[in-house]
């Protein structure tokens, strides 16, 4: 196969799974990150403790170990799931732990005066968070969230190791059948780069657009 044909073949078979895993895991991570980050700021010690455990466990052990654990160990406890589910769960939980720290520190970096002004205007705690603090914190978080999205996208290559048929998996299959090793792995690197690079640029643009004239 020509280099071009290899790229087309890889894209045709693995791109959808790679992107699907990325999107689903990113959504899960964002949701978990916001829930965890807000809970970390709770007045209730017990709630803070629970989140701390979640964050430390998922940050403290390796993503690949978590992926294997969810895919190979959970079935022993009767929790059998598809490779895609396991992949989304592992990556989402792992990045959710990191995201919750981003959310926490973002909220904490909003000027205290904003809270005082909201109290003076008689906002409830929920209104204050939703209307005043989080919108500002979100802009502060954007650079970090953008970086995490790129890292998350790259980490989806690990799902090949639990036989999910993403780009990396397909490259291995193709390698075994065609033995065009150099071209295949070069093509694979290029494909990842061509997706990740515009993502990096896109996040930077979003950042600029959101801060324009306001901050």
């Amino acid at each position: 196969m020509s280099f071009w044909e290899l790229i087309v073949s890889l894209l045709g078979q693995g791109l959808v799974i790679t992107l699907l895993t990325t999107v689903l895991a990113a959504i899960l991570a964002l949701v978990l990150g916001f829930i965890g980050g807000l809970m970390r700021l709770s007045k209730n010690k017990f709630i803070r403790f629970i989140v701390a455990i979640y964050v430390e466990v998922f940050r403290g052990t390796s993503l690949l170990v978590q992926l294997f654990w969810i895919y190979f160990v959970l079935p022993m406890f009767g929790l059998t799931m598809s490779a895609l589910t396991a992949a989304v769960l592992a990556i989402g939980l792992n990045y959710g732990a990191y995201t919750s720290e981003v959310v926490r520190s973002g909220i904490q970096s909003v000027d205290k005066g904003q809270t005082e002004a909201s109290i003076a205007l008689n906002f409830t705690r929920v209104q204050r968070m939703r209307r005043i603090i989080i919108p500002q914190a979100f802009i502060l978080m954007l650079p970090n969230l953008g970086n995490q999205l790129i890292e998350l996208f790259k980490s989806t290559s690990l799902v090949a190791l639990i036989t999910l048929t993403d780009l990396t998996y397909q490259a291995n299959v193709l390698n075994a059948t065609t033995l065009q090793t150099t071209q295949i792995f070069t093509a694979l690197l290029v494909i990842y780069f061509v997706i990740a690079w515009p993502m990096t640029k896109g996040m930077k643009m979003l950042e600029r657009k959101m801060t324009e004239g306001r901050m």
Partner: protein
Amino acid sequence: MWDWNYAFEVLPDIASALWVTISATLVGFVLALVVGLIWTLMIRSNNKIISNVADGIVKFIRNTPLLVQLYFIFYVFPQFGLSLEPFTAGVIGLGLHYSTYLSEVYRSGIESVGPGQWEVATALNFDTRKTWTRIILPQAIPPVLPVIGNYFITMFKETPLLSAITLVEILQTAQNIGAGTFRYTEPLTIVGVLFLLLSYPASVALRQLEIRVTERY
């Protein structure tokens, strides 16, 4: 569900593989520290070609997955006559990948040193090398030490990827045991616990360092 006897039986095997994991981390980290600094200096070079090439390489490495880079080193290099042991290939992959992150850390450290320091170095007639080694780096590195330490821990947690290129580190050892006995629960859990036991105290210590550093700088 969980068999303590079995767990204690497999623990020594897994723990003995820990040293492969740790040495891969250490060698990879040293490589990343050195190569990262080279990238930074190249990118700062006045020669546009050197600077752009280094910048391009760093961007490419940063925007592609470590796992694929490992495959590339392990499977493609031999096509050009360069066959590497799994450990060597793994360490090069890890080191190269994280060198691009460290390069960014060095850059931010260097940029945090004010322009006045460069001017003073010129005024005192330091040559370029002395300016870097005596004035700029001693100021640029300490504030970013916690970030550098963080990358060390991150690299440690990335070493299981080396199992994909057949390096028998702790995850691969656990997998091998699991494949032989069809019991994955204990070996895989032990691997997770070992990572947590090693990385959590390290990150707590780093947070202390970070507090000290913020107080000082």
